[in-house]
């Protein structure tokens, strides 16, 4: 290159050359010709380029919404709600939409694996015969009482199979657990129902029929119990077609997405929920007149006002609102129940409903109907029951642990010591679809199909007036070398022989399912009926399940709901520190959404943050501490500490901080790993009387670190550029 021939000229010429060759090769056969593989044997109901639709059940959470999945040429393209399913009536939440990013996730477990050592990334691929032999040996070579199953929250056919197996062989009954159940405080709800109504059951709140809704911490528009159903209820509350537009008041220390929709948001001091509920009850009873119910006797509204930070006038105004409406409904839930006095809060709030006498009436409190093939309410394990189980593991009483549909290493508070206790278990076998934390600590991973590749059914625990059994069928053939866990267990049980073989005398999963569902053929008032099993099962798959046509919600027996003493104590808080700590489930990610890239990219509904964890802090407090947006702070609790960037959140009490749960994975695929923090690391071992974790009953310290970590947020682009991530590149 001569000195006169400048670099710039050279680049120009080189550019022309590159463009020419790009054009020429771009037209060449290599890039132009694609290969097309037609079906070897096309299903007769299929046409090329035409969509085929299958009904199945969403497996992203335990609610059991029905899905219709659009498939083209054997690929799943889009999920929609099943309009026939009485639970979700054709609607889905964001997680249901993103379930395809789980099905086609690049980080699924592709084959059965044997791990060289626990926690290591090096695995050896096995074939399924050897894998099933491992399961058979585990069943055969251990005492039944040393074998345990840990499962997800969904009451599904696998749970029924393992329950049958356990009761026939003396194995430990399967434990169902999930972080959602822990943060919803399901055990507290059913215990409170038992105490007040004499029946352990999941209450159903008819938000849609109410005129005034008081929610004490219940995040029913986010992840609580059955979000799609409750969102429909909320739309009914607001709908002004046949009645007045309903009012909604939310009591919580940090404005949740649900609280953001409230007409009045009452930031009470954490721990005073029971007091406030009882005080409103007392004031409302006074307005209504008559004898003061025993439940509200020993509460002092003036004292409550000073303790809770709510003005007395506000309490009186709220009581007037509650007493003045003939459709008032009070809902307990979320962080309000996850405190040392959570059971008292639940009872106090449920008792409020007695004032408007709405038990078993439209716009009131019901008990959820049992699913069609269910004889009693099966509650998932509470955190305390999990603690007992972990203790059993630590004591060496469990030799073999099977894990399916749950990720205890991530979902359980670290302080419960699952990780340490698992070292005393000689063999851990995971059936995980994704390489999650627990699968990484397992000796073997025998991957189950993704939910959209599986047969099955799932009982709907709550959310529908009709009893619903959602049906699941594969919408696509398995993408990887996975196998249904039910099939693995049936085959392994045959190999193990003895009582195992006789407990599961089935050819395969479908035969087991047919046996379970066939009992419904004889029932009247069902959504489908058929003279023979083959037709009945075809209808069952075609319509996405079986449900009763009638409203079978149970009216609670609430005779003395008000005639019992309810403790009017404040909650106790564990740990030292100036801040109340509120962990909440991320409305978009929930407990298992972090590996789905589009769920990561959904902005959080309140903060609009994407792809990370933040801690919410009142701007005033932050100003006093000299903390700004995106400053990383260290949060220290009695159980642990973590570092997380600050989001200045205008709708949180100055004495409270909040962290979303859902990120902070150390495994679980490329989109989840090493992203954000897990607030479960901060939680201590404190439980309420019902055995639920007192996750909102901690106090924590906040320390500055001097580091900044900008959060990606959607709101920054609206009008204002400038919040970037450091240097442009």
């Amino acid at each position, binding site marked *: 290159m001569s000195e006169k021939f400048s670099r710039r000229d050279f680049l120009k010429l080189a550019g022309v050359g590159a463009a020419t060759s790009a054009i020429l090769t771009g037209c060449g*056969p290599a890039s132009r010709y694609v*290969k*097309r593989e*037609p079906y070897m*044997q096309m299903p007769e109901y299929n046409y090329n*380029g035409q969509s085929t639709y299958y009904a199945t059940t969403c497996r992203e959470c335990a609610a059991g919404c029905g899905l219709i999945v659009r498939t083209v040429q054997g690929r799943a393209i889009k999920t929609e709600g099943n309009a026939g399913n009485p639970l979700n009536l054709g609607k889905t939440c964001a997680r249901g939409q993103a379930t395809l990013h789980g099905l086609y996730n690049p980080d699924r477990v592709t084959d059965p694996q044997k791990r060289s050592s626990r926690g290591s990334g090096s695995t050896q691929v096995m074939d399924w015969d050897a894998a099933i032999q491992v399961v058979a040996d585990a069943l055969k070579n251990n005492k039944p009482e040393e074998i345990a199953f840990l499962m997800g929250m969904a009451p599904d056919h696998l749970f029924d199979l393992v329950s049958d197996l356990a009761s026939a062989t003396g194995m430990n009954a399967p434990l169902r657990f999930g972080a959602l159940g822990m943060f919803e405080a399901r055990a507290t709800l059913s215990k409170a129902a038992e105490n007040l109504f004499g029946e352990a059951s999941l209450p159903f709140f008819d938000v849609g029929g109410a005129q005034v809704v008081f929610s004490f911490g219940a995040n029913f528009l986010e992840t609580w119990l059955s979000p799609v159903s409750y969102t429909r209820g909320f739309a009914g509350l607001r709908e002004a077609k046949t009645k007045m537009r309903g009012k909604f008041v939310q009591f919580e220390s940090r404005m949740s997405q649900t609280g953001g929709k409230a007409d009045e948001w009452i930031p009470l001091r954490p721990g005073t929920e029971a007091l406030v509920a009882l005080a409103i009850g007392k004031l409302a009873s006074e307005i209504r007149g008559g004898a003061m119910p025993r439940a509200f006797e020993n509460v002092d509204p003036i004292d409550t006002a000073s303790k809770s930070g709510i003005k007395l006038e506000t309490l009186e105004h709220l009581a007037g609102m509650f007493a003045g409406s003939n459709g008032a409904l009070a809902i307990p839930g979320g962080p309000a129940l996850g405190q040392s006095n959570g059971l008292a809060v639940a009872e106090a709030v449920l008792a409020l409903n007695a004032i408007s006498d709405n038990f078993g009436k439209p716009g009131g409190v019901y008990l959820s109907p049992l699913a069609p093939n269910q004889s009693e309410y099966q509650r998932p394990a509470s955190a305390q029951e999990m603690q007992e189980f972990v203790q059993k593991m630590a004591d060496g009483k469990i030799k073999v642990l099977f894990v399916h549909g749950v990720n205890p290493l991530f979902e359980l508070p670290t302080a419960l010591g699952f990780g340490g206790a698992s070292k005393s278990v000689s063999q851990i076998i995971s059936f995980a679809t994704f390489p999650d934390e627990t699968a990484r600590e397992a000796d073997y991973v025998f991957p189950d199909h993704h939910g959209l590749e599986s047969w099955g059914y799932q009982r709907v625990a709550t959310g529908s007036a009709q009893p619903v059994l959602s049906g699941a069928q594969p919408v696509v053939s398995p993408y990887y070398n996975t196998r249904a866990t039910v099939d693995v267990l049936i085959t392994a049980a045959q190999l193990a022989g003895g009582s195992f073989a006789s407990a599961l005398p089935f050819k395969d999963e479908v035969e087991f399912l047919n046996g379970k569902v066939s009992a419904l053929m004889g029932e009247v008032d069902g959504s489908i009926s058929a003279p023979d099993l083959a037709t009945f099962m075809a209808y069952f798959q075609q319509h996405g399940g079986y449900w009763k046509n009638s409203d079978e919600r149970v009216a609670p027996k609430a005779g003395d709901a008000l005639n019992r003493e309810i403790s009017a104590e404040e909650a106790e808080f564990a740990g030292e520190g100036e801040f109340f700590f509120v962990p909440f489930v991320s409305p978009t990610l929930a407990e298992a959404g972090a590996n789905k890239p589009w769920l990561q990219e959904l902005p959080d509904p309140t903060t609009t943050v994407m792809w990370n964890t933040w801690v919410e802090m009142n701007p005033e407090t932050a100003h006093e501490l000299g903390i700004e947006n995106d400053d990383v702070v260290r949060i220290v609790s009695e159980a642990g500490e973590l570092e997380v960037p600050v989001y200045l959140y205008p709708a949180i009490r100055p004495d409270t901080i909040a962290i979303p749960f859902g990120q902070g994975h150390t495994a679980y695929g490329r989109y989840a790993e090493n992203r954000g923090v897990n607030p479960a690391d901060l939680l201590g071992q404190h439980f309420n009387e019902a055995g639920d974790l007192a996750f909102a009953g901690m106090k924590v310290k906040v320390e500055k670190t001097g580091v900044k970590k900008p959060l990606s947020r959607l709101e920054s682009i609206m009008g204002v550029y400038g919040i970037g991530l450091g240097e442009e590149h």
Partner: protein
Amino acid sequence: MIKSIFDWLKQPLGLIAVGITVLTLFSIAAYGIYTTQQAPEQPIQFPHQTHVAFGIQCLYCHPGASKGPAAGLPSQAKCWACHNQIAKTETSALLAPLKEAVQSGTPIQWVPVAQVPDFVQFNHRAHIAAGKNCEDCHGDMSKVTIAQNPQVFNMGWCLNCHVESAGEDHEKLVKLSDCGTCHY
């Protein structure tokens, strides 16, 4: 500096060099375009004319054309339904890949010939319904062995026909010349 290059190029030697370069570029371009116009290599040298001669309708093997966007390729089970009754299938070298594919259960990988870019949303059904015949776009299949692309599917060609078929009907013209009819 650019000027000195031009001066050099004006010499006879330079002119020859320019000529050679232009010629080379032209032949590369011509070859490039030539290759794009070749029928691609197919797994089976499928004789369309033989099948048409037997009186098999296009829609028998490509039934999607009258029902939806894609005409589709027949599954090999469909090929085999006829071919396993034909003695020649056992001996013909041309049909060996089909026999192999059916017996081993591996799909045949065809190379599509008539295709439009990803940003064009083409629907066969609407065209069949509007009275177009297969040969209007795909040529006379009774004359070719493996499918060849008789027509370059460019936008001008599409639009000509769209405008023509709309005729005097203004509403139809609006619909058929709307960008959003094909591009979304």
